[in-house]
Structure formats: structure tokens, C-alpha cells
């Protein structure tokens, strides 16, 4: 039996891999020694799980769970404080007409909007996530990325969504990517000794191969990331079922090895309730039911929420209603 996730810590896990992360060569040897991924087989498996038929009580459960897992996101140049306040209000009460509708997990904004979001959300339990580290490209010097991170944490961010340096990863400089994640994780520390949770974005649309996705997953987990995340939403393709499946296999295998649980967040491109439910089936059958919790699985999305709400209302009333019956944000 693997050690239970509550007792193993990220430090234990890091210690376990100290030999692996000692040098570029040892890290490369480890990552390239992971079992390969056969693309055709992986696509077929993800598609097969996508044919599960989730109806009635199972659908009601899945819709509520999906709402609780949403990181309601706005990451636009045109974002204003007003827009972020409205989004935060929506995150707390997605369906003002129905008190039984759960809140989302978090709102996800740029660092300069963290304070505004925090002001509205307060102690509601809805977290504030901030993208940092020169999001979305990650093309900046390390000290700027770290300053970006500290700024967001100081402003009250509960979670930091960082991007990896895809250029370094693709040119095989794994240790550089690893050390950057470690440094950002340290920058997530708060004055009181606690720490913001770190999500590590791979931009899988740029890594392209499933072998790369698996290697990036292990790299981020060994570096102490709390979550691994597919995409920024700014590059196509963003999240896909097979890519998310590869990442779910990685967190499952990482727990087998270390006892440490890591979360998974597909982001971008998940727009319909039906899609969201397919992802939950993947979580259930690939990583296992322990991951069916907003602490361990999130959806990075914006339009998805209203789709979930519409289906939820349909489940309770038996009727479809139009988009005007749901708030814009």
C-alpha cells in the first residue's frame, strides 16, 4: 500500500527524487525512462471513456461537482475592476434563483486584479487564483517572474497559476524548468509561513506529444507543484480529453510512488456540460474517485459555467430555458 496522502508531504517527495534532480543528465535519464505513450491507443481509450452514458442521478451529481470545480476565469487585456467584481459575485452565487446551487472553486485573474477579487470574495470560501510568471508566454527573466508571483501572493492570491518555459523544455533543458518551478513555489510563501497553492501550466498545445506531456507532468510534480494544468487558454489546442488522461495517469502513478496527491486542471476549450462530464468520467476511472473533489480537480473555464447551470436547471425543472435566464457574469 502507498503511504496515505495526508502523511506524505511535498518535502518527502522532493527528498525521494533528490538523486534524479541532481543534474540535467540524471533528470533527462529519468524523464526519458518513463514508459512511452502510444498516441493511437491513448486517443482510443479517452474516446472510449467519452462514450459513458451519464444520466439522471449520476448527471445531477456530476453537474454540481463540475460547478464546484470551476475556476471562473477572465484573462483579458480589457478586464476592469468592475468586470472582476461582477465575476467574483457570480462565482459565489452562480444561480441567484437557486440557493442549492454550489459556488465555484475559484476565480482566476491577472495579478493586478487579485485585490479586487479578494475584496468581493472575502471569506466566502471561493479562492482567488492569479496567473503569474509572465503569463501566457513565460518569456521573461526569472527575477521578473518571481516578482510577478510575489506581487500576486501579497495581494492575497490563494493560488498561483504559473507557466513553464516551453522553450527550455523543448530544447531539453529540463533542470532549468525544474529549478524555475521550485523557485516559483518558494515565491508562493507568505509572511505567516503558509503558502499559496501552485498550479503549473504546461501549454500542452505547444509541447505537442503525449510523451512530452507525461515528462512535463513528472517534472512539475517532482518540483512540488500542487496542481498540473494543461493550458493557458491562449493557444490552440487547449485542453483535450487524451492530454488530460495522460496527466491523470501521471498523478495516479506519482501517488503510487510517493504517497503524495497532486491535482489536475484542464483549461480552455471545455464549453459544454457534456464535455465536462466526460472529464469527470476520466477522473473517476483513470485517477480514481479520490480526485473527484475541487481540491484535486478543476476546470479552467468561463462560458462552461452557464452551460452547467442551464443543464442543472433542466434537471430540476424538466425544461430548458434560454441564456437570458442566466447571468452574464
Amino acid at each position, binding site marked *: 500500500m502507498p503511504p496515505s496522502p495526508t502523511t506524505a508531504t511535498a518535502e518527502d517527495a522532493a527528498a525521494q527524487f533528490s538523486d534524479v534532480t541532481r543534474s540535467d543528465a540524471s533528470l533527462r535519464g529519468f524523464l526519458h525512462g518513463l*514508459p512511452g505513450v502510444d498516441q*493511437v491507443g491513448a486517443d482510443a481509450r479517452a474516446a472510449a471513456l467519452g462514450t459513458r452514458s451519464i444520466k439522471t*442521478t449520476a448527471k445531477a451529481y456530476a453537474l454540481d461537482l463540475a460547478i464546484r470545480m470551476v475556476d471562473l476565469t477572465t484573462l483579458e487585456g480589457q478586464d476592469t475592476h468592475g468586470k472582476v467584481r461582477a465575476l467574483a459575485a457570480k462565482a459565489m452565487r452562480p444561480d441567484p434563483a437557486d440557493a442549492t446551487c454550489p459556488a465555484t472553486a475559484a476565480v482566476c485573474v491577472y495579478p493586478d486584479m487579485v485585490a479586487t477579487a479578494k475584496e468581493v470574495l472575502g471569506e466566502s470560501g471561493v479562492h482567488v487564483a492569479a496567473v503569474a510568471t509572465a503569463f501566457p508566454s513565460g518569456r521573461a527573466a526569472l527575477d521578473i517572474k518571481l516578482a510577478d508571483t510575489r506581487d500576486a501572493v501579497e495581494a492575497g492570491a490563494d493560488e498561483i497559476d504559473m507557466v513553464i518555459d516551453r522553450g527550455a523544455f523543448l530544447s531539453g533543458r529540463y533542470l532549468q524548468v525544474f529549478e524555475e518551478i521550485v523557485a516559483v513555489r518558494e515565491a508562493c510563501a507568505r509572511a505567516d509561513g503558509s503558502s499559496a497553492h501552485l498550479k503549473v501550466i504546461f501549454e500542452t498545445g505547444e509541447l505537442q506529444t503525449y510523451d512530452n506531456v507525461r515528462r512535463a507532468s513528472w517534472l512539475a510534480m517532482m518540483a512540488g507543484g500542487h496542481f498540473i494544468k494543461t493550458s493557458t487558454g491562449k493557444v490552440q489546442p487547449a485542453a483535450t480529453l487524451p492530454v488530460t488522461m495522460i496527466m491523470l495517469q501521471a498523478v495516479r502513478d506519482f501517488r503510487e510512488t510517493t504517497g503524495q496527491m497532486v491535482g489536475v486542471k484542464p483549461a480552455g476549450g471545455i464549453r459544454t456540460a457534456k464535455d465536462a462530464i466526460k472529464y469527470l468520467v476520466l477522473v473517476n476511472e483513470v485517477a480514481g474517485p479520490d480526485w*473527484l473533489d475541487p481540491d484535486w480537480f478543476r476546470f479552467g473555464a468561463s462560458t462552461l459555467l452557464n452551460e452547467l447551470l442551464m443543464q442543472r436547471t433542466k434537471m430540476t425543472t424538466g425544461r430548458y430555458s434560454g441564456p437570458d435566464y442566466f447571468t452574464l457574469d
Partner: protein
Amino acid sequence: MTSNVFEYAPAPESRSIVDIKPSYGLFVDGEFVDGHGTSFKTISPATEEVLSEVAEADQADIDLAVKAARRAHTRVWSRMPGRERAKYLYRIARIIQERGRELAVLESIDNGKPIKESRDVDVPVAAAHFFYYAGWADKLEYSGYGDRSLGVAAQVIPWNFPLLMLAWKIAPALACGNTVVLKPAETTPLTALLFAEICQQADLPPGVVNIVTGAGATGQALVGHTDVDKVAFTGSTEVGKAIARAVAGTDKKVTLELGGKAANIVFDDAPLDQAIEGIVDGIFFNQGHVCCAGSRLLVQESVADDVLERLKRRMATLRLGDPLDKNTDVGAINSAEQLARIRELSDIGEAEGAGRWSAPCELPTTGFWFPPTIFTGVTQAHRIAREEVFGPVLSVLTFRTPAEAIEKANNTPYGLSAGVWTDKGSLILKMAGSLRAGVVWANTFNKFDPTSPFGGFKESGYGREGGRHGLAGYLKGGE
């Protein structure tokens, strides 16, 4: 308030689309007629509910069916230009697609297989076979085997893929200008009888396709009939040998597709997560009622523990139950007789000292069920490593080197299929060249396509079905 248990609510496919008649006759010369043997009942293996009463064809009925086929061959079908025959085959293919849901539901009810398999595999692949061979009907002179039909084909098919095996048999026979008398298995006659209706719907000339139902005696009478030119059989090696003896000394052409004990070989550099899926697909697809099932897992010792652990974890997620539920992965065992055989061989495996492990799943109280099961610590000397179980039972053996894997994989009287899992292309080619098996799948398993020939080495039979090679068995220039 909330739990982490994601219970999938029942999602049954509706039965209302099928109309099962209380009784069925034989389909001879374009009409349903009474049989003169002792009629028998076909049941749902998932519930043991009686579905219908089916006629048994006796010697006289067989004689009428063969005569009808002969007449249709001489007067109509062999004289019809290939492009005209193709029109009928295309029409049948399209009707199979149009009535796909009906066929899938009926197949799952009568056979016990999960609806997701009958819907996504059996029916679409059956239609694909008719489409594929329809394309050959007017191009036979380019096949390399000439374009002269044999005459009347006697075809006997098994219960594991009732409609799909019918398509494998009938489509090439008809494309080549032959007429057929086909006997479905006694436990699964219903989709063949629905296919008879489809022949009527397609206006196929009477006598081109005849369906006679019954058990072993009916099959014997059919293949032994003096006026058939071709015998095509898919089923057990034991019956296959009896057929080979029965037709010896006649000028009947024979195609036999018999048993198997395929090795699914996993090397230490395999894409492991996909290999696990391939192992599961190889032995638990269709409850392991597959002649080319990957029933022997040969895993390299250096990854054996890891593979077994992953396999057990995956097997624990298999959903066994109602074949009509769209989320069912493993359905019912086809008959009480087959269940008894699986139990017997499994008990022998345990008595011989192999480690038995079954996926934790609740078995329904009525019907015939067997949980997905693996045996570890199996050696070549165990009976479960040698005999075909034809059920959801996997024997796990280990090997150290590619040479040992080849030796063990080939050390069987059978030779129908094999699987190889490795990231190394050169090793795939070496293995494919060394394995004595009709099909070798690389980094996949149980994939069927009408363009690909299928057939066995050694006691797995002779002749090929599918692809251009599948025409050879139905043309005079084929040998």
C-alpha cells in the same frame, strides 16, 4: 454533504426497437417455412428468459435449402453480372446500417454481449464487410483468383459474433457469385433470422441466401450434403476436425477458422498504459468469447510486477452486468454449458497451483456470469496455458528475452493471433516474422477490418477470410 462516489445510474438501451416473434421458421428460397425437426428455445443468457421458439432443420429441410440455393445459383446469381450483384450487397450493407440499433439490441439480448460492443463493433464491422465485398463483385478478374463461382456454400457459424460471422461468410460468397445455406449457432439464431428479413427487404433473389437453424446434427447434415461445393466453418477445433474428416475424399473446398490460444507479449519498453488496455481488450472483450483472444499474457520479467498491479487496478474498474446498459463493459457468458467449461478449467488452474484473482464485482443472481479473472504464476505445463478457455480468463506467464518470448508464444497447437507491445519498431518486425500466427497485432489488439485477411496456423484452421485473400475460398481459381 458530498461524496466522492460517482455512481453511474442505469442507462439501458431500450428494447422496444426489437420485435421478437414467439416462434421462427427456416428461411428457404426467400420464404420463412416450417422446420421438421424438434424446435428449440433460445434464451437471454443474462436473464435466462425464453426469447423465442426456433425451428430445427432436419435432413429433408437441409435438402430443400440446398436445392433452392442450387437453383438460385444456376438460374440467377452466377449469371448475374458482378455489378448487379454488387447493388444487392450495397443495399444489404445500407439496411444493416439503417437497422443498426435494432440489430445491436437483438444481438445483445440473444448473445449477452454488452450493447456498447454490438453497437460499436459487431454491427458496423458487419456492414463494412458487405460494403467491402460489394466493391469486389465487379472486379473479380483483377483479384488474381479468376471470376468463376464455386456454387453452393454450406456455412456454419459460432455464437460469439453471430451477425459479424454471418457477414464474414455471406458477403464474400455472394460477391463471388455463390449462393449460401447458413446455419447460425443454436444459442444465437435471432440476428441471422433478422438478416433473413433484411434479404427480403433488399429484394435479394429467392434462394441466394438460406438460413437453417438447429444444433450439431443440423450442421452435420448441412456440411455432409452431397450437393454443396464449399464448406466454411468457424468454431471449435474439435468440430473443425470432424468436418475435415467428413469432407475428406470429396471435392468440396473447405475453410476452417478454429480455436486459438494467443500470446499477448509485453516487453519492458512497452507503452504500459496502452498495453494494459490491450491486455484488457484482448481477453475481456466479448467476455473472452473470441477465437483470437489474447488469453496468454507473456510479460517480460523486469516489468511483470508493475504490469500485474496496473492490470488488477484496471480490471477493478470493469463494469459487469446488464448487457443492454450502455455503461456495461463485460456482459453475460453465452450459455450454461460454456459457463461450466470456464468454471471447470479455472478450477483446474487453481488445483494446478496457479494464483487466481478475480476483479471484485457483484454477479447478477440470474443468468450466466463469470468475473474477469487472471491466473498468475502460470507455466507452459499448466492446462490453462494450453487449452482454450473461451472465457474471461487470462493466464499470465513471464519471459526474459525476445527469443524466449517467441519460443513460448509458438509453443501451442494453435496459431491464430498474437500481440506485441514495445516502443521499438525493429523488435516488432522481428517478432511479427517469428510468430507462427495468422494475425500479429503491434501495440494494439482485437482490431478487425474487412480489408485485412484473417485466419490461422496449425490447429487454428486453414484458409483466409477478409481482404482480397478472402475471395480465394469462393472462386474456382482460388487454389
